[in-house]
């Protein structure tokens, strides 16, 4: 059983949002975009730990539109599918369709702050139900972003002990009973010993004398300090979580380790309690990365999603966590005209086969792009270095605008475009005007043509028809001379696709001739060739060589993709 989607209408900062979920989903989005509100909407219907009083709507639950008008009602709808668990089927009599679908809806009204819950097998036949009776076998476990290990241990200690008790075999249980008895006697002797300490015994002597003086009634009455009847059970209740390294006791860890301990405990308890045959649990974890080292964050994400026995929904601000997710499991919340919604309705099916081939490259860098307001895609490391330097030199603060530079390591822009479009993250890109030989025709009588690869790449990404092969000879200069380059550029630039005139190094020569001339003692053509060899290393040398004078013409081709990206980010 899984949540297919949730629909939020006029709830808090959602005006009308449809959010799909995958088996394991990652929810991302800037601060205050409504990640916690979205989870709270799920919790209203599914979290056992929220009481009847907790789920009563309050004034701030009703969405306020940009014009200041507040909605009169809100609704939260959850669609489930694959309802096959017997316990759930048994409990949801008549509410599960033949195809295993089930819907829940929470409706609230501002006039009297009343609410009702409805269930149904399809949206046309929702029936109001008296309570969240389904919670016994279908619910959600939520772990808050502000986690307090000490408090958690205090509330869960007894629970943990009981679970461990139940898990013992008979031999262990018998041994424990014997040991407990022995400990109990030991404790009794400790109690006696303490009572007999001289100063403990004497402490109340005066008090007893006074009491006797006060009234004869107190003659046989004796007040004394003692340990109380501390018995072994109370003693165990007082156990506290301690830690030791290599056998010697240490203080419990810092925030990061405490976070890990808590999540580990929570997971262990959840797995122990979760009876997969007879109940459905959906796990929600907010920002599991708190205080953790990057590697630990990465480990934590895979640990949580692989080990928890149900659907998981994780919110995060960490690229390390995001790197564990496929892009079709990502829900990116964004703000649109004052209301939040999910990009492409969340968990969009944006992965084509190319992504799978690219799988090994999914790393921290592309993952970071999920969190960007806009992304500039380039072919390789030389561009990365140059554009970072250009931005610095022109006072464009990429981090402030939440812009990421991303190298596609080659020319597979299409894969990234799909993902970024699905996440509704604006992007721009720059690619070389590659032109190469190509053989066509039947075997034996093949002809050589010139393939305008760069232009066709740009046109394909823009969704425009490709250009035919050209007769030999044809090169970049020819494409500029016959107007092809200008025509293609004009068509694709509005979409943020920028075509180099020749390649990066030649374009630098065009726009920064003075800086490149004399670079490493070369004349201009030799400098271009030098820069083209050992790309990234020599580009770095060039950037150092330029220093603060790395200024290109403001309307020039080099700067265009970056400006496009910055403008898009500013609008987001």
């Amino acid at each position, binding site marked *: 059983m899984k949540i297919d989607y949730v629909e939020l209408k006029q709830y808090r900062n959602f005006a009308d949002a449809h959010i799909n979920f995958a088996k394991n989903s990652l929810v991302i989005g800037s601060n205050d975009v409504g990640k916690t509100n979205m989870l709270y909407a799920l919790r209203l219907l599914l979290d056992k730990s929220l009481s009847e009083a907790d789920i009563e709507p309050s004034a701030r639950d009703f969405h306020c539109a940009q014009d200041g008008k507040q909605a009169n009602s809100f609704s939260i709808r959850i669609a489930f599918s694959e309802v096959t668990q017997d316990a759930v089927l048994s409990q949801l009599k008549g509410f599960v369709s*033949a195809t295993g679908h089930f819907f829940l809806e929470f409706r609230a009204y501002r006039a009297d702050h009343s609410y009702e819950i409805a269930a149904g097998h399809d949206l046309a036949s929702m029936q109001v139900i008296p309570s969240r009776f389904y919670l016994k*076998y279908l619910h959600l476990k939520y772990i808050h972003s502000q986690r307090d290990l000490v408090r958690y241990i205090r509330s869960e200690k007894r629970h943990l002990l009981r679970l461990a008790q139940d898990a013992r075999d008979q031999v262990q249980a018998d041994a424990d009973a014997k040991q407990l008895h022995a400990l109990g006697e030991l404790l009794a002797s400790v109690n006696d010993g303490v009572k007999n300490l001289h100063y403990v015994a004497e402490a109340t002597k005066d008090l007893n004398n006074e009491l006797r003086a006060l009234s004869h009634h107190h003659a046989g009455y004796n007040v004394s300090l003692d340990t109380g009847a501390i018995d072994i059970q109370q003693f165990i209740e007082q156990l506290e979580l301690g830690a030791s390294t290599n056998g010697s006791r240490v203080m419990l860890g810092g925030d990061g380790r405490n976070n890990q301990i808590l999540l580990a405990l929570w997971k262990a308890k959840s797995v122990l309690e979760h009876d997969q045959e007879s109940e459905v649990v959906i796990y929600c974890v907010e920002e599991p990365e708190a205080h953790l080292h990057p590697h630990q964050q990465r480990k934590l994400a895979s640990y949580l999603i692989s080990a928890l026995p149900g659907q998981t929904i994780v919110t995060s601000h960490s690229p390390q966590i995001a790197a564990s997710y496929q892009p079709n499991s990502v829900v990116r919340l964004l703000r649109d005209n004052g209301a939040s919604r999910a990009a492409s309705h969340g968990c969009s099916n944006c992965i084509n086969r190319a992504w799978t081939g690219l799988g090994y490259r999914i790393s921290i860098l592309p993952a970071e792009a999920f969190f960007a307001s806009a992304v500039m895609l380039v072919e390789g490391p030389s561009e990365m270095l140059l554009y970072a330097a250009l931005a610095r030199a022109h006072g464009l603060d990429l981090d402030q605008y939440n812009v990421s530079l991303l190298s596609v390591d080659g020319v597979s822009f299409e894969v990234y475009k799909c993902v970024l479009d699905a996440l509704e993250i604006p992007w721009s890109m720059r690619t070389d005007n590659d032109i190469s030989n190509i053989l066509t025709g039947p075997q034996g009588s093949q002809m050589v043509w010139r393939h305008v690869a760069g232009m066709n790449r740009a046109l394909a990404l823009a969704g425009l028809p490709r250009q035919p092969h050209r007769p030999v000879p044809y090169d970049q200069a020819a494409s500029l001379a016959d107007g092809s380059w200008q025509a293609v550029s004009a068509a694709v630039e509005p979409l943020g696709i920028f075509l180099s005139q020749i390649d990066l190094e030649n374009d630098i020569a065009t726009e920064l001739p003075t800086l490149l001339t004399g670079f490493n003692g070369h004349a201009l053509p030799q400098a271009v060739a030098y820069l083209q060899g050992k790309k990234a290393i020599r580009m770095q040398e060039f950037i150092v060589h330029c220093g603060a004078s790395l200024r290109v013409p403001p309307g020039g081709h080099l700067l265009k993709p970056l400006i496009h990206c910055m403008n898009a980010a500013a609008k987001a």
Partner: protein
Amino acid sequence: MATFTASVEQDQAIQCLINMVVVARPGSGKTSVLSRKVRNLVSKLRPYQGIIAISFTNKASDELEHRCKDGAFDVKHSFFGTIDEFCLREIIFPFSRQLTRVAGEAKTAKIIELPEPLMRMLPPTPIQNATVVDTVAFLPFLSEALAQGYIPLEAVGMLAHYVINHSLACQKYLRARYRAVFIDEYQDSGYFQHQLFLKLKDLNLTAVAVGDGDQSIYAFAHKDPRYLLRLTAPGSGFAHFAISTNFRSHPSISDYALRLLDPSQPVAPTNDNRVFIKTIDGDQRAIGAWLATAVPHLMGHFQVASADRVAILCRHQRSARLIADHLRLAYHLVEESPFESVPSTEARIFSDLLRLRYDLQLTAEPHIERAGALKLSRIERRALRQAILRCRTCEEGDLVSSVMDAATRLLGQPPPSDAVMALVSVCGDATKLRWFRRPCHDAIHIMTLHKAKGLEFDLVFHADLYDHVIPTRVYPPGTFGQVVFENEKQCLNLHYVGVTRAIKACVLMTSTLRINRQGEVKSGATSQFIGRNGASAIPISW
């Protein structure tokens, strides 16, 4: 429960875990075996699972449920109730709306209570004769009824069968929730109950039928023992068990009853025969007069603790009435509801409210729940509860208005005027109101044999043992001068059921005269069943 020790044949039936049919004679500990089987099975189930236990009457169902729950045993999500309740609650209400349009608040109604245009949609086949293949012809009528918010009571079985067959969701639900189905009194199965039972077996529920063909007495209501016989036939897919020892009745009563059925039934010689026969000079009125002295005398002789352990069983309600009127002892006459003429929904609500008035153990809660009032706000609920409880606390003079008020709230609309007139007449009649009181311990039960099914009494007086009555006769053309019985087996079964209700003693009652249906006094020829197969009863001479 703790005191029940199973006999060998009982134990075999309890231990068997596959689909089975148990033929259980009267007094053979059927309910004990059933409850033991249920408990064994339920204890192995997960908390959300349960079993289906279907009984013929609410009373039998309550008894089984009570025995299963004895000692705070957790029956988990089991269902106890009648077949109609099961069909409505577990199949029709929750799943019919997945197949067809159903008006928001569907309620059950007899076909004759339906609006005229709806009734005209009925196909020519009478619904009581309809089979699965006829369902298609009934579908337009059924779906229109549902769309208008009616579930025709007579079609509940057909509708349930249709829903279970066509709703995959319903099948999944039943499979997920229920592991076994038990149906008691299978000899009185209707056609669709039998089909439903087989369907549940197909859904992999362990199917257990319990019955006794010799106790089949409802053929007139289209219940047929042949469905039980099909299960007991070889190759039916059901293991066949018989539990036959009668632990209820005195051996002489048991022997007498069995000899009625089977001429080769051995009868143990005894000098303590507990089956008596008394022939009265006069008609049923004289029987009443004789019983006034005979009942206390025999109660003393057989050490019967209280009068409610004594029953007078009759073939017809009018005999019961006649005997009651001349009994001059405290009695409780089981009668048809005074609201017989009122539409079923209103009749049930009126009866419930009046019962609540006289029985302090009843609460308003079930009525609030049944009315779907869980959706009400707290204030509305409180008002409804107060209105219902006012039926208990109000003065006699305000009874009509209190019941009307509560019924209006429960129905969501005022009851129709003919129902109101019936209510006014019942509330103004102390004898009719008595029907709603709980019978007290010192009242003799007087009822028809059909109503006595499943009950037991220390002392039974079996009346109406006349020719033409038990058994009844028919006169087909060209049979002048011959004796032709009408459905002799059913009549014999009825007599068998009557005799086997007795624990300590059974008195067969005849008289020289009898008052017939038309109120005429006729000669009271003795029933052909007296002395059948040489069964002998001791005449009472005093």
